[in-house]
């Protein structure tokens, strides 16, 4: 597939656990190449003296008391499960 950046959409989609059709992969490749070209402008910014900001506001080490409290029961937690039985989520076999 032709591309104009180092991004390989088909490969990254596999990392992200999203199946793509070939047509979709081709379209996204073109669109995201454009976006990556646009964000190249960040290379011009002088960040040599800057610390990275994970957050806009300085919040550190937020603790609350480790106290038990009511929360919804297992039955409610399972109420939206696509498949469930015996109080458990049912998924395809993982271990032989």
């Amino acid at each position, binding site marked *: 597939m032709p591309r104009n950046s180092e991004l390989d959409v088909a490969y990254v*989609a596999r990392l992200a656990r999203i199946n793509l059709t070939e047509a979709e992969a081709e379209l996204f490749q073109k669109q995201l190449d454009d976006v990556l070209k646009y964000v190249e402008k960040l290379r011009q910014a002088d960040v040599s003296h800057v610390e990275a900001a994970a957050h806009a506001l300085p919040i550190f080490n937020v603790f609350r008391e480790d106290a038990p409290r009511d929360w919804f029961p297992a039955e409610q937690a399972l109420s939206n499960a696509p498949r469930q039985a015996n109080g458990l989520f049912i998924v395809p076999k993982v271990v032989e």
Partner: protein
Amino acid sequence: MTAEDLPALSIADVQSLLRRREVSAREIIDALVARIEAVDPEVGAYLSLDREAAAKDAEKANVDLPLGGVPLAIKDIINVMGQPCTCGSKILNGYRATYDATVIRKLRTAGAIPFGKTNLDEFAMGSSTENSAMKLTRNPWDLSRVPGGSSGGSAAAVAADIAFGALGSDTGGSIRQPAALSGIVGFKPTYGRVSRFGLVAFASSLDQIGPLTKTVRDAALIMNAIAGHDPQDSTALNEPAPNYTAKLGEDLRGVRLGLPKEYLIKGIDPQVKAAINAAVKQMTSLGAEIVEVSLPTTEYAIAVYYIVATAEASANLARFDGVRYGYRAENPKDMLDLYGRTREEGFGSEVKRRIILGTYVLSSGYYDAYYLRAQKVRELIRQDFAKAFEKVDALVSPTSPVPAFKLGERVADPLQMYLADIFTIAANLAGICGISVPCGFAEVDGHRLPIGLQLLGKALDEARILQIAHAYQQSTNWHKARPPIAVGGRKA
């Protein structure tokens, strides 16, 4: 006043009628439902409406509380116990919330009735609400145009008088921009001012819940109910929330307004520019002083945003894997097949695009060049705003460079859609607060299209921004104009 007139009232006015026992909470719900049924088939603001639950809540409403008996619409990305929460996505079709978000719990404590879940761009990713997998929402001022996004359903509902007010969420402008395009007030609080517990996460360091309303006073009333610390959200600031209505009514004498010179970009619609200039002049005549300021990093804001927001989204949306809730692909042959097909079939294009971009910028070998660099430039943007706010109380700009665009006009080119967020995005990166208020109309193809004025304030200075916006609004009539569909609905 007849029942047909009720839905056009502001929150403040309807609450005062309720408090004086001139109307009951049940009558309000009934009048609103009648209007929704008449108007919403054309607008498409709502995804779900639980009339029975609302009627029950109305019967036991305590109208003496600050928002007692007032129904409020909720963006369908905020959990309301027992109600659907689709996030505008197929992947959450059929999901029902098992708890109330903190904002919902707080609204209920203030007496409000959460009623109706509103349409949005899928997982709040978009600027037009066209990325919803559920339905199309139309701009009440011109049904061939978008209401803005991502809180487009909330904005259209308030604008069309089929909601008294609504909650939205704002990650890069998703409250302010649809408010501007739909001709109402939209307020984004400081990051951390309102708890995000129960808001389905898109970009956790940027997301913030806020009100969409007919007036600035209504926005302040909702803020009084929802602001404040929450032990269930570690990013909710542990700062006392002030009374947001207390300063309303103070004038603009001594207020310093900053005009960022970098915001005079090409591509601003001439009618938008004229309306903003007129609004600035109006505020000057009310006593405000104008100061030119500089935000040199403006040109980087959109690039930083689409790296930081997509990176966070790729991590947040990993939870939609078809295991615990929502959609699951049929007959998966193994776990990888279950994940891959569930996410292929469940997510729409924009969401997939952003997850892929976010995964890429966080991936080994690219993290430093993209994500780490973007975080550093984000810090520069934050510092730019901090410097500007040493000189001024608020920054003034258009909310959107253009009025509402046509449905379908921009879907094919994501980058062009992103670039329209230029004025709103930086506020989320810097964590500051901002509001959009109606400031005029553009005449386009025989339709009047609303224009929004944006005021940005420093972190935690919401009361000041609401005061300035209120003073301006009280000197204009823009917020009193109703779209043709609301006026027509009233006659029917």
